């Protein structure tokens, strides 16, 4: 009895969750003609996904946004995991004095809401000539990614026996060599998990893009996508939906290909 009920609820949820997916797919492939004449629920007569996307591409300059966003979402997490790993290595292996206090300082950076950062960043970036520059976004995305990276890497390095470090020192290895040849390779999975989490976060970011960028070349994709919706963009929903599908592909792919890693990252990051 209970089992039937839970199965029924799950089935209803299945349908409810797949309806928006269905609507997203049929309407993003619908041609402008069909969109004007057909019901939103009908199967389209023509498959126009590509031309819809090209329309969005030209209206919102999505192409350049995509390139820039790739740059942000790859470079910032890559730099952040290394910086986080260096910090963890300093605290755990090099036994930095007051290491835990420094660690708390770095990790504490993750509790500030983005709302507490954007006004000074906007004003300060304008002064420093970083406003509407790719470097400015890379810097801020790296900074917000560092606390989690340091947190996970410190925890991970705690699990590596200190005697490995000591043995390497006795063998005459420099700290950098121990870091890059022993500690980093051991941490590949953790590094990848953090990278994927941060990649997704940056790819999906809207707020920094809204406040720190202006031109189509610098603007991240989600900000570009949201601008397609504004009244004066003059685009119909079939075009916006196609654009949305395209800009969501990278995160969907990452998610499908690395779901286990992703879940691991979530577990590492959120439950410690």
């Amino acid at each position: 009895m209970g089992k039937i009920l839970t199965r029924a609820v799950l089935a209803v949820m299945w349908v409810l969750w797949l309806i928006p997916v269905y609507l997203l797919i049929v309407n993003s492939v619908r041609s402008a003609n069909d969109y004007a004449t057909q019901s939103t629920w009908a199967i389209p007569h023509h498959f126009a996904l590509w031309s819809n996307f090209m329309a969005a591409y030209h209206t919102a300059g999505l192409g350049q946004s995509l390139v820039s966003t790739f740059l942000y979402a790859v470079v910032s997490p890559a730099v952040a995991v290394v910086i986080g790993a260096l910090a963890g290595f300093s605290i755990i292996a090099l036994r930095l004095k007051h290491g835990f206090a420094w660690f708390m300082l770095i990790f504490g950076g993750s509790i500030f809401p983005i709302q507490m950062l954007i006004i000074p960043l906007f004003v300060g970036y304008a002064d420093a000539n970083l406003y509407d520059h790719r470097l400015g976004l890379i810097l801020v995305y790296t900074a917000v990614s560092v606390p989690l990276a340091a947190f996970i890497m410190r925890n991970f390095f705690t699990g590596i026996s200190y005697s490995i470090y000591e043995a390497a020192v006795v063998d005459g290895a420099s700290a950098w060599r121990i870091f890059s040849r022993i500690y980093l390779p051991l941490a590949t999975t953790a590094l990848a998990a953090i990278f994927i989490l941060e990649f997704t976060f940056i790819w999906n970011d809207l707020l920094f893009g809204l406040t720190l960028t202006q031109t189509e070349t610098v603007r991240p994709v989600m900000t570009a996508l949201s601008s397609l919706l504004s009244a004066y963009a003059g685009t119909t929903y079939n075009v916006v939906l196609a654009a949305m599908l395209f800009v969501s592909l990278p995160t969907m792919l990452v998610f499908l290909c690395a779901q286990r890693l992703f879940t691991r990252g979530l577990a590492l990051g959120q439950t410690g």
Partner: protein
Amino acid sequence: MTQLADAGPTLRTAPAKPTHPGRRLLDGVQAWLYISPAVLLVAALLYAPFVWTVYLSFTRYDGLGNPSWIGLKNYTTFFHDDVLWVTVSNTLMWVGGTIVLPVGLGLFVATVTYRSKRGSLLRLPFLIPYAISGAGVAVVWGFILQPHGALNDILSFLHLPGGHTSLLLYRPVNTIVMIVAATWQGVGVNALLFLVGLQSMPEAPLEAAKLDGASGWSMFRHIIWPLLRPLTAVVVGLSIVASLKTFDVVWVLTQGGPGRSSETLAVTMYRDTFVANEYGYGSAVAVLLTLIAAVASVTYLRTQLSSKRNVSW
């Protein structure tokens, strides 16, 4: 491995190289060098802006010229602002709504599917929206909820009420349907988090309960739920903090409108700052948002930690 582990004590009892004061100093400098990039980045781009925002919240500032100190005036103005009640109650709806819907349904999906062989297939519909961004979710639901959109179409087709009006136009319905949109996206990640907990649950109590004839609801109520409580505490805590900062979906779908009827605190902050150019006032809203988030999470953590029913494993 054992050889490496054995090397430790010998090294410590026979200090061949270290204790040279110069070398120790060098070690300290090196440790500093390794942590400094993280410290510098976090200090310059997270801590400094944070402090600056607190300062700006006591000033009048339009982004040009210099901020002028006005004490608590931004805060008193906000407490007399008509929008305060709207934005705070909307934000609270978001907090309550996201605990009940995405977290609750995520727990449901995880517990119903975690023992099934086709579990990952059963969870797939909930994971698809999770791979979509907040802005993307807003686009999909904007399409569904717009006037003459997909929802209106199906309601008219079925001769149900509501077919001729957009649900985004009226308070509090607009906030509620946006919470539904966020639920569509959020169930997947919560299910994943609970799944991690369920899969790492000790087998013994589950087996014992099964032998005692427990199943279905009683199994969940008396065995799984208590075992999951620490994780539930974390998931709910995260959800509270995240929902207090709700911005993306609301901004893309309604920009807080019509009027200011669907604003959340984060949207109010953005609008006052970057649309109205009241940087000091916007800073004050940001500070209040942070204070509310801090108080909420500390209070929440304390009730969780003091709870006697908290089972740890």
